[in-house]
C-alpha cells in the first residue's frame, strides 16, 4: 500500500513569492491534515479536511495561507506571499476517520526555505 505522497520535497523561494505544496493521501482515507513543523518543534495542525470540507481551520493564517481539496482526495496548500518566518517543514497526514482514536499516517513533508 502506498503511503502519503507529498511534493515537492524541498522548495527554496524568495520572500513575497507564492508557493504551493501538494499532497496525495492514502487511498480510502477521507480525513486529511496539514501540519506545520518549525525547527526543533512538534507539528502543529493548520487545517483538517473531512472529504472535501475543511472542518478545522482555526489554526490556518488565512491572510496568506489557503488550502483546497476539491474532489476529496488530493490537496494543495498555498502561501501567498511567503515570508521569512514561513521557513519550515509542511507535513501532510491522512487517516481513515476523524475519531481521535485513529492513527494518522504522515507523508515525508515539504521543507520550505524562504530567502
Amino acid at each position, binding site marked *: 500500500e502506498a503511503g502519503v505522497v507529498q511534493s515537492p520535497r524541498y522548495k527554496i523561494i524568495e520572500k513575497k513569492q507564492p508557493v504551493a505544496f501538494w499532497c496525495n493521501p492514502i487511498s480510502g482515507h477521507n480525513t486529511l491534515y496539514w501540519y506545520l513543523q518549525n525547527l*526543533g518543534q512538534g507539528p502543529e495542525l493548520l487545517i483538517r479536511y473531512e472529504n472535501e470540507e475543511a472542518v478545522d481551520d482555526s489554526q490556518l493564517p488565512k491572510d496568506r495561507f489557503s488550502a483546497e481539496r476539491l474532489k476529496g482526495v488530493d490537496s494543495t496548500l498555498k502561501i501567498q506571499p511567503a515570508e521569512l518566518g514561513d521557513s519550515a517543514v509542511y507535513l501532510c497526514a491522512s487517516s481513515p476517520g476523524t475519531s*481521535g482514536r485513529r492513527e*494518522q499516517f504522515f*507523508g*515525508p513533508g515539504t521543507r520550505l526555505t524562504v530567502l
Partner: protein
Amino acid sequence: AQSVTQLDSQVPVFEEAPVELRCNYSSSVSVYLFWYVQYPNQGLQLLLKYLSGSTLVKGINGFEAEFNKSQTSFHLRKPSVHISDTAEYFCAVSDGGSSTLGRLYFGRGTQLTVWP
C-alpha cells in the same frame, strides 16, 4: 486545548543501555495518547498508542509506554537500545472535544542519540 510536555529535548545513551523518554500532558479528561518517531528527512511513524484498557502498551521496535492517569504521564521506554533507534521522538495527545475532534497535540520532541 491540550498541551504536551516532553521534559528532555535530548537524550544521549550508549548502545544496549535502557532508555526512558518522558511525556506529560495537561488534561486528565479522557484522552488518547501516541508516540511517533521521526527519522531524518522522513515523516512521522507511529510507535504505539494508548486508547483504553491496559495501561502498559507495547509498540514496534521493542518500545513500550505506560499510561499513568494520576500523573498525566505517558513515558516511553526501551530496555536495550540500538544505534538504529537514533531519531526524534514525539509524544502526542488527542482529545474528544467536538470542536477539535481528531486534532493531535504534539510535544516539542526528544532527540534520542545512541552511541556505540
